[in-house]
């Protein structure tokens, strides 16, 4: 799957979980850019992403993400493997 395609799907998930239809993700987007994206909702996002792609991340993978680009890469490498 292409990076851009993953990004668009992540965007859908973010809009759904965070209940904010204005979200426009880029690879550089971080939790600081989206008001609703805090440590409480972060984990809801992770669960939704795991469900959507039927993958499971490790704790250290989740904690190493710095922005949406890292998340998309993590999804990509899980799907590719």
């Amino acid at each position, binding site marked *: 799957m292409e990076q851009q395609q993953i990004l668009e799907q992540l965007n859908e998930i973010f809009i759904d979980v965070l*209940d904010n239809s204005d979200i426009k993700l880029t690879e550089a987007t971080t939790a600081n850019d989206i008001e609703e994206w*805090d*440590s*409480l909702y*972060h*984990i*809801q996002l*992770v*669960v939704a992403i795991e469900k959507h792609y039927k993958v499971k991340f490790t*704790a*250290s993978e*989740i*904690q190493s993400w710095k922005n949406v680009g890292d998340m998309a890469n993590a999804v990509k490498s899980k799907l590719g493997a």
Partner: protein
Amino acid sequence: MLFNSIEFLIFFIFVTTLYFGLPHKFRWLLLLIASCGFYMFFKPEYILILGFTIVIDYYAGIWIESAKTPAARKRFLVMSLIANIGVLAIFKYYNFINDNITGLCNLFGYTNQIPYLHIILPIGLSFHTFQAMSYTIEVYRGNQKAERHFGIYSLYVMFYPQLVAGPIERPQNMLHQFHEKFTWDYDRVMSGLRLMAWGLFKKIVIADRLSIVVDAMYSGTYGYNTVWVFIGTFFFAYQIYCDFSGYSDIALGSARVMGFTLMKNFNFPFQAKTITDYWRRWHISLSTWFSDYLYTPIVINRRDWGKWAVVFGLVFTFFISGLWHGAGWPFIIWGVLHGIAMSYEFMTKKWRKKTFSKLPVWLNNTLSQLIVFLFLQFVWIFFRADSFHTAFNVIKGLFNYENFPDQFPAFTAALRYSLLVGALMLAHFLVFEKFWRNEKWSKKLDSSVGLRYAVFGYMFLLFVFFGSFKNAQSFIYFQF
């Protein structure tokens, strides 16, 4: 040594002058010696406790980094955590645990034989052990290289501005700064001094003044009723805010004078519109510590539970946070109430958004801030009261609508004076803070020397005439 003492003033001038006079390669040594002196002012022999954990964590960091297998890395991390939590357990929680065992024994008709420990809590223990743990955890996670310079690692734990009451720093922000060379920069030095002055103002003019009224209310001398309890708890909210954020300002300011940047610890917490938001603004260095090292790992591991993972993570983290503040059940209740409030906010977020978006924005914001403040004011009763007994009497008093004005004549003249001056100074503080919060005005203050002289001159006058010097108090957070 208290920041609000003459000793500290002399210490600060002496150390800062030497700091700028010495070549860079000796500065770490000066700061380390100064920090040891600062700490030993309280109870000299306790420096040995610090020494013990510093040595263990220093080697743990190096061993974690050079370990060949993940299991070995983990072993060294666990060793460091056990040493730090062990010291906390003995000095801070031993008697608390023992008391609870006694209670359990009595319940079942046994006698608890474990002896009581007669020790004084080392100052700032919870702060520097948390900062030390942050180091070994970050080395373990691969975010920080192990520090090889033993003196600089010691300084990371002992740096006097933040040694006894934070901000609880992270190695990624602090360690490299001790290797950097900072030069004299007039503007930076002045801005650091101004921050210190503002911190001292908050402490001496506001917090220590309000504390006279708060202490009188909690002592129960004048009985408890709605108005009196409301005044006492209202004043306590601002007392603890000015006390602790004042301390942080002096810490940040004195570090800034020398060129160091410490992390921001407060961001106008009473502007928060939710409790969740409040914890992003109050004691930020502690809440991010708990979030990074306790809450997030718990919730990640339990994420199969869905939303309940967050609820469990919040309540458990705030249970520990309560315990971190003090070894006693009232602190734990205080923490758990925060955890429950945040869980409620989390579970009802969508519903609240839908329901209250119909209100005008200003009304929604004002009401939200008011509710948050009243909640804080209420749960702080458990934090401030010396026992459950007092806490319940105070809460009962909240619903006792009778006879407030009758007791007023019974107040001592000093108490009446502090009530009046406290209210007046608090009003000043609120106005000052409103300007600080306003970007346009705070920029104006930064750019206009004349305005700065006027504001700080006025503050100085208030300080001289209304400062609470006879009632110089230790900082509330020193006990943690």
